[in-house]
């Protein structure tokens, strides 16, 4: 009977592992949809394709929320990984925040319909590219935290790199916007979107920083 119970323990563990993987998959998928949605907006404004992707991100965000809650409940109700439980909880909530920010930014595009002059579009494209690379890297770092803790550093390094690149692009973009002849309302409106995009990368970096601390805690 005891052996039976152990088997059940392993089965539960595998199910939970799968849920965590699914959560990270959703985050990664959300990032990729975000990139395509912003590109669609830049190319065609608030078109059907854009709205469709926004809906998908919306679904992903609520699915990720449900998964996160389920994982957290299981971790605590089954008293799993007692030494890393708090860290995992923090990690999942911060990762979830990335999806929330992605969703919020896309809603901003949909509602506020910002008018992005053609001259800045390439920089916007580059910015979203860097931001999504940072998100992808932080997803890999998080996966490594669960599966191969030694590899977290390699991925974290990339998160830092892309966050810096995103910063460079956003600074360049903001300088260009405020150096232009656009009216102030338009300028501040555009800045708002640049910052929203850049914030996703900043948040990814924050998660990476936390991960680095968790790794130190678990390996020293």
């Amino acid at each position, binding site marked *: 009977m005891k052996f039976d119970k152990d088997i059940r323990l392993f089965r539960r*563990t*595998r199910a939970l592992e799968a849920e*965590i993987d699914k959560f990270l998959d959703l985050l990664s998928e959300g990032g990729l949809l975000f990139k395509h949605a912003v590109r669609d907006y830049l190319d065609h404004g608030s078109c059907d394709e854009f709205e469709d992707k926004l809906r998908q991100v919306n679904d992903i965000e609520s699915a990720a929320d449900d998964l996160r809650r389920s994982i957290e409940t299981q971790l605590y109700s089954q*008293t799993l990984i*007692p030494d890393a439980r708090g860290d*995992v909880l923090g990690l999942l909530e911060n990762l979830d925040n990335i999806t929330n920010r992605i969703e919020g930014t896309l809603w901003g595009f949909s509602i506020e319909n910002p008018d992005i002059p053609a001259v800045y579009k390439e920089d916007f494209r580059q910015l979203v590219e860097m931001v999504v690379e940072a998100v992808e890297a932080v997803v890999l770092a998080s996966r490594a935290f*669960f*599966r191969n803790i030694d590899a977290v550093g390699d991925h974290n390094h990339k998160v830092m790199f892309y966050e810096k690149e995103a910063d460079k692009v956003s600074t360049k973009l903001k300088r260009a916007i405020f150096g232009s002849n656009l009216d102030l309302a338009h300028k501040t409106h555009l800045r708002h979107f640049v910052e929203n995009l850049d914030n996703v990368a900043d948040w990814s970096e924050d998660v990476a920083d936390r991960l680095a601390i968790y790794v130190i805690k*678990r390996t020293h």
Partner: protein
Amino acid sequence: MDVSVLFFLTSGIFLGWALGANDAANVFGTAVGTRMIRFTTAALICSVFVILGAVFSGAGAAHTLGKLGAINALPGSFMVAFSAALAVYLMTKASVPVSTTQAIVGGIIGWNLFSETLTDSSSLAKILSTWVICPILSAVFAVGLFKLLNWLLHRYPIHLLRKDAYIRVGLIFAGAFGSYSLGANNIGNVMGVFIPASPFTDFSFAGLFTITSIQQLFLIGAVAIGIGVITYSKRVITTIGGGLTPLSPIAAWVVVISHSIVLFLFASQGLEHFLASYGLPTIPLVPVSSSQAAVGAVIGIALVKGGRGVHWRVLGSIGLGWVATPVLAGVVCFVGLFFMQNVFNQQVYTPVHYGISEPVLRKLNSEGISGHKFNAVVGESFNSAVDFTHALDQVPSLGGNTYPDVLKYAKLHDIFIDPSLLVNLESGTLSKLKVAAVRLLAGRRFEHEWQLADALAELEPEWQTLPASKFNRIRNKNLKSDLTYLYRLFSAVD
């Protein structure tokens, strides 16, 4: 059945309870401390396996009599068990993991002093070496195992959750196994001395299996240990599982395993016998204790992590506790015996007399100890081992190293193989051939214990002591335990 037996049994139960409260931490302390296993789960598993170990493995000949077998009067055993239990209880109250065996040895030394029995000087040396060698050995194993495990996990990484599940299962298995050994190894100390006075009789369960009176007695002791685990073990568990230094789940598992490895490698006569029987080199047996091994392993892990997390104050109080345990038990026992004898009028020891008669001289001669030297003491009777040794000091050219043998052969013990007591052998641990040999001696009377042993050895090869060797060690030890059982059962001394 004498009601006083039941009263005396209570100190055995108290000792069992104290042992459970203190020693559960050695097998489950780190698992509970790291929150890998809930206290209630751990206490339940521990209690069940302690009971199984005590009832099914504890009744073997090697463990039955336990340390208290040296005490020759039931009220004396009561006091030794009580003083040991009190010492262990006080240490448990102070959250200090201590060795119950050392508390018992301390109590026995108190009894020895009171009854003017000689204390085997090696028992003191054993206690001292256990404080030092055992934790060091355990720490070395813990460090090695911890490094190996970390290297393996570095090399072959596994999912955080799966690692957690494996460690959890590992902790449960190691804890259950450790609890089983805890019960098997310690029940003799708790209950062994009461076997000859056991108020129970064998009963058969639906004709399927029989529960012997010894097993029933051990069941009571084991239940006491189990209750100790459930009701009072949390304090020491907290010390081992985090009070000394914070531990990770892997470290928790390493502590339990290295503690078990040390106990198995350095204290297992079974392993020695196995290695010797295949002509392999044996591992030297050293006195080890579960509590000392567990503390050593925890400290080993803390040191490999740089030693920063060690709470030195806790370690200091543990060290003090180790010294205080046998001393306290000894003092309490000595004072308690005084009161039992003089206030409650109990006979706390049976005076042992010594005398060198003709048969003893012949025996000494045959054992290579020249008989003529003893002319000055032949025919005299001595009322205690201490008196007798003083007299031996006057014997010219008698080396001190022969004293134990001379004492053994000169010890007077009126033994009568009472035919009405033979029925008690059926439920004991003796083999059929051994029992048959004893039956042949029914009605005989012996003046010395060795005479009975010699008579039995002549009748039945199973009763013969084999030449001392690593291979024969267990057999001879069991033989000695069986003989002691007979000496007690057929003792014609009040």
